[in-house]
C-alpha cells in the first residue's frame, strides 16, 4: 500500500497547488508546526504565518503562507489561504514591502495579544526568507 496522500492548496482566486503524491506535509499550525502523514486523524486547524513544506517522491517544495485554515480528512489535506507564494519564484520586493508593513503594524499599541503574536511571527518568517 502506498504511503501517499493528496494535498490541495486553494486561494480565493484559484486552486494554487494540487498534488496526489505527498509523503509528508509540514504546516505551521497555530499551536506549533505540525507534520502530517498518511492516515492522520481528521483535523481542522488554522495557520500562522510560516512555511508549508511538502515532501513528495521527487523532492520537496516550500510555500510561504500568511494565514489560512487546514482540513485533513480521508487522506486529503486541504489548505485555504488568502496569501501564498512559492518560495522558488518569490518576489523579493513584495516580501520586503510586506515586512515593512508588518513591522509598522507592530508599532501600534492597541493590538491584542493574538494579533501581536501573529504579526511578530510574520516578521520573523519574512526576515528569515529575505
Amino acid at each position: 500500500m502506498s504511503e501517499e496522500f493528496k494535498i490541495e492548496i486553494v486561494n480565493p482566486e484559484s486552486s494554487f497547488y494540487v498534488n496526489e503524491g505527498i509523503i509528508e506535509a509540514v504546516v505551521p499550525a497555530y499551536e506549533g508546526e505540525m507534520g502530517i502523514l498518511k492516515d492522520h486523524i481528521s483535523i481542522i486547524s488554522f495557520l500562522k504565518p510560516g512555511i508549508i513544506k511538502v515532501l513528495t517522491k521527487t523532492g520537496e517544495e516550500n510555500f510561504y503562507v500568511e494565514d489560512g485554515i487546514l482540513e485533513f480528512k480521508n487522506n486529503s489535506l486541504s489548505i485555504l489561504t488568502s496569501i501564498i507564494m512559492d518560495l522558488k519564484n518569490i518576489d523579493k520586493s513584495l516580501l520586503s514591502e510586506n515586512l515593512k508593513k508588518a513591522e509598522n503594524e507592530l508599532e501600534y499599541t492597541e493590538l491584542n495579544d493574538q494579533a501581536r503574536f501573529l504579526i511578530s511571527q510574520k516578521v520573523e518568517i519574512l526576515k528569515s526568507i529575505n
Partner: protein
Amino acid sequence: MPSLDDLKKRITSVKSTQKITKAMKMVATAKLRKAQENAEKGRPYSERMNNIILNLSKNISDKENSSKLLVGTGREDTHLCIVLTADRGLCGGFNTNIIKKAKNYFDKLSKEGKKFKIITVGTKGYDQLKRNYKDKIIEKISFKDSKNINYFDAEKVGSLILEKFDKEEFDICTIFYNKFKNVMTQIPQQQQIIPLQSEEENDSSNEQPDDSYEFEPDEDEILSNLLPKNISTQIFKAMLENSASEQGSRMTAMDNATRNAGELVDKLSIEYNRSRQAAITKELIEIISGAESL
C-alpha cells in the same frame, strides 16, 4: 415623408451604431470567458470554506456563547444591505434586476418598521438608489480602478462590514448580487451573511455526521478566526459571480442591439429605395405628360 437625404443620413447613423454594439459584444464575449473562468476557479475556495464552517458549527457544544457572527445579536431591528452592481451600464437588465430585488426587500423592511442601511458597491447601484434612498446609503464603494476582481478589494468591503458590526451598527447583513447561471440567464440573489445561514442545512442531515474532527485550538477559537474571513469570501464570491453575469448580460444585450440595428437598416433601405423610385417615376410622368400636351 422624410426626404431622400434624411433617410440616407439615418441609415449611416444606424449603421455606425451597429458597429459600436457589435464591437461591444465582441469585447464582452472575450471578457466573459475570462470572468467565467475566474468564477469557476474561485468556487472551490468558498465551497470548502462553507464545508469547514458547517462541520465546525455542528461540533460546537455551546451554541449560546459562540460568535455573534454565527448566531446573531439576538435582535433584528437594523439591517445592513450590501448591493453589488456593475460600474458600467449598457448591460441589459443586469443592474436593474439587482436593484429591483433590493428595493422589494427595502419595502418589506420598512413595512415591518425596521431600520435599514445601504452600502453600494459599484457606481451604477448608487446612481439608481440615490434617488429614493439617499439618506439610507451610508457608504458607496467602487472598484473602477482595479482591472481585475481581486480578493483584496473584497477584503476591504469585508473589513468595513465587520467594523460596523463590532460597533453594533446593525444586526443582520444581507448581500444582493447576480448569480451567473449561463450567458442568457442571471439570477438576482439575496443572501444573508450575518448571522450566517447555511444553505445546505437540509442536505447535510443526510450525510453521516459521525466523522469527528480533532480541533486545534478548540472549535470556538477556530470559528471566531474563520467567520470574519468567511464574510470576505462570500463578498468575493458575489463579486466574481457578478462580473461573469455582467459580461454575459452585456453580451446578450449587445447581440440584440446589433440585430435590431440590422433590421432597422433593412427597413430604412427599403423605404429609401421606394422613395427614390417614386421620385424617378414622378419625374418620368412629368416629362411624358409635358411631351403629350405639346
